């Protein structure tokens, strides 16, 4: 029996917990909505426009940077596990890999990709 089977067991239990919590809150809570309750909270000011709209593009560029670096990190996991076997060859390969990544990093830094204002 694969150990992953137990993970699916845990997932089922977790779903159960979530379902119970959601159900209880729906069943037990009272229900008397009014208009003020149903409008989005904006510190008491009546909302003028939909919240969904434009948001700063910095978040999108940050997501891209994350993708770049995270994929590099994903490559490092199998490497880290087998470093004991790869020895010096593995280390050199990773140094080259990180050097290339480092150039990208310096470039992003230099072009202001990491500034936040």
């Amino acid at each position, binding site marked *: 029996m694969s*150990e*992953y089977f137990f993970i699916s067991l*845990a997932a089922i239990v977790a779903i159960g*917990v979530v379902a119970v919590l959601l159900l209880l*809150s729906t069943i037990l809570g009272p229900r008397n909505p009014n208009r003020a309750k149903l409008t989005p909270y904006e510190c008491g000011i009546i909302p003028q426009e939909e919240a969904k709209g434009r948001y700063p593009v910095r978040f999108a560029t*940050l997501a891209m940077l994350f993708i770049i670096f995270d994929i590099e990190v994903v490559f490092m996991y199998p490497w880290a596990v087998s470093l004991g076997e790869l020895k*010096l060859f593995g280390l050199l390969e990773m140094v080259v890999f990180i050097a290339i990544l480092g150039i990208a990093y310096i470039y992003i830094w230099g072009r202001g990709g990491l500034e936040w204002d």
Partner: protein
Amino acid sequence: MIDDIVHFFEPYIYLIVGGVKAIIIAVALTAVVPGLVWLERRLMGRFQVRLGPNRVGPFGLGQPISDSIKLLFKESIIQSSADKFLFHLAPAIVVFTAILSFAVIPITQPFEIFGQTIGPWIANIDSGILFIFAISGMGIYGKVIAGLSSNSKYSLMGGLRSSAQMISYELTLGIAALSIIVMTGSLNLVDMVKSQEAVPFILVQPLAFLLFFIAGVAETNRAPFDLPEAEQELVAGFHTEYTGMKFAMFFMGEYINMVTMSSLVTLLFLGGWNTYILPQNALTGFLAFAFKVLFLLCFFIWLRSTFPRIRYDRLMTFGWKFLLPIAIFNLLLTSALKVL
């Protein structure tokens, strides 16, 4: 008769044991949350030279219980322009991922009971630490979805900030953990603890420990990195629009994540269930583990009452320009030392 029953259940014993373990851990995690809330409020009270909750029950222990009962009976308001399905899905994801990511954490060494060797974990998989990163990474979805589906400006900003912050610090977290993986040559958490039998990795890898811990605090959205829910500016951020139990579920997720993160730090750096000085068996192992986790949890709370919240641009700069290069440097140093 009993033999017959035992015989009948024999093939299913792994299933029963697994199910019981899963239920125990899920219930324990759910139950530990009110305790943590109480601990936090009491400790915060001490730190701020006041009493904290002390009216309901001895030492105010009844306070979190009555709070959670109150939350159950609160009206759950869904504002009219919100997306109903996603609005419910978001807290579900947060709690689900929080509970599930604990599944691979070994809380003590394997022990024997009724002739069965039981591993004190739900699953012992070879990709343990990857599993935790993957599942807890999914928790970000919960926060983003909460921010988007609420259709409120504070929620949206909180959700975006939360995701940006968490993905930024996930890099540091992963790379700091890589140093340990290089040392142990395994992703399995049990193997990692076993390789710390002589000396915990915090002594060998102090820098990785610091990086991992700081990133861990940021990952769990705890002060001083609690910008997603900054109550003064964002009115609690992505869960502004949530009420009642659904609101509480976000806190459940956060506190369970705190426990998971503390456990992970314990397993990776503090030697897990290794007692070092006391005699080593399953019970003392568990106590050692629990003590270390509790210590870290108190440390989390201590941090919260000590440091002011840092500014958002500083947070990002700190993660990307300071922690990340140091983490990579540490990784290269570790692997060079390992190979040479």
